[in-house]
């Protein structure tokens, strides 16, 4: 497309700016009902429209052209903001597709009556494809998050007969299950009788986390292992007290080092004296 043609398009858009933008705004407000106010949309669209007209005037013909640098920047911002606000891919893409509704008003009646329904349908096909693609991507991300969860819960052997689980991050039901299984298996495999669960990396211990920890400890004890919870930081200790959680006779230590020293000391004593 020669530069002259771009300039011509820019003139068309400028001449019919009011009608095109009004139709554009109407179309996207219908699609985004309740998610975005009309004022927000209008501001957003006026930015996009101005950048488009300017880009065309500067001779831009393809989106990759330098003349459209600003337009690309605005579109990237708008899409990013919508993704963070939880808009669907369809709602996001409509910000741009709805502009075509404005352009339909420029073509002559005959063409409009015959072709616009088809063009709308094609747009819908595109949006549908895009949405499915995004769903598939989302599924992949969820899958990876699950894999990460397994990776992030290693059970390490600290000493002969002593294993530790350094917990990092959020402890939900799914992850507790993974941790518990891994810990119990490792206890059997390594023939260990001491397990240390370190929660230094757990940002907050609420009742759910505490309950999960208690269950894991009880399970380890049922298998005959001594279990210590270590890594109780001062702020966590105060929060646990205020919440009213009781760890009962479960042994807790401030640091992993303390817990390890304890376990080593007990290993030296005859088993009959060991109490947990």
């Amino acid at each position, binding site marked *: 497309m020669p530069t002259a043609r771009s300039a011509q398009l820019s003139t068309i858009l400028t001449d019919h700016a009011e009608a095109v933008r009004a139709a554009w705004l109407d179309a996207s407000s219908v699609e985004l009902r309740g998610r975005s106010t009309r004022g927000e949309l209008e501001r957003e669209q006026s930015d996009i429209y101005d950048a488009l007209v300017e880009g065309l005037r500067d001779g831009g013909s393809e989106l990759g052209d330098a003349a459209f640098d600003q337009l690309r920047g605005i579109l990237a911002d708008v899409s990013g903001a919508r993704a963070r606000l939880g808009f669907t891919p369809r709602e996001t893409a409509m910000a741009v597709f709805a502009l075509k509704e404005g352009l339909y008003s420029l073509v002559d009646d005959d063409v409009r009556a015959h072709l616009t329904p088809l063009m709308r349908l094609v747009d819908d096909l595109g949006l549908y494809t895009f949405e499915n693609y995004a769903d598939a991507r989302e599924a992949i991300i969820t899958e990876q998050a699950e894999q990460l969860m397994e990776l992030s819960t290693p059970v390490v052997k600290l000493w002969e007969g002593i294993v530790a689980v350094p917990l990092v991050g959020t402890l939900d039901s799914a992850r507790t299950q993974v941790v518990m299984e891994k810990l119990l298996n490792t206890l059997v495999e390594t023939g260990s009788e001491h397990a240390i669960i370190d929660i230094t990396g757990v940002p907050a211990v609420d009742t759910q986390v505490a309950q999960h920890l208690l269950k894991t400890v009880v399970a380890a004890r049922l298998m005959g292992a001594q279990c210590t919870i270590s890594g109780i930081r*001062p*702020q*966590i200790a105060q*929060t646990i007290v*205020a919440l009213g959680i009781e760890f009962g006779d479960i042994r807790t230590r401030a640091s992993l080092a303390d817990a390890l020293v304890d376990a080593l000391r007990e290993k030296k004593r005859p088993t009959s004296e060991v109490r947990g």
Partner: protein
Amino acid sequence: MTTTSPTTGTRQPVRDDSDVVRVRQAVRRLAQQARLSLVDQTKLVTAASELARNTLVHGGGGEAEVELVTSGLRTGVRAVFSDQGPGIADLDLALTDGWTSGGGLGLGLSGSRRLVEHFAIDTTPGVGTRVEIAAWAR
């Protein structure tokens, strides 16, 4: 009374476990911004975690609003959790330590009240529940 600066708050849905984590992160971020002590930060975050989970588990999902607030010279963080769930029939019972309706420890609601400076609950059976908490920098 309290005034709110509009730029420093978020409203987010509480629909699944990952939303609970997001609410917690938002509360932590604002608590750091409000310069709460580490202990108060942790307490507020823990309370927010409990209440967000209550919204999810008992309220059937809802939303959380977190914002920075100022009162005189003090800065603080306020979090509001609301749902259109079944509500709480017996509030006194629900606020009793150790009473649980869902197999938990029964300390979530009562414990949260002890974790924060301001705690207000408004519930109507069949209509929903709204819990407001706030903590202030000392």
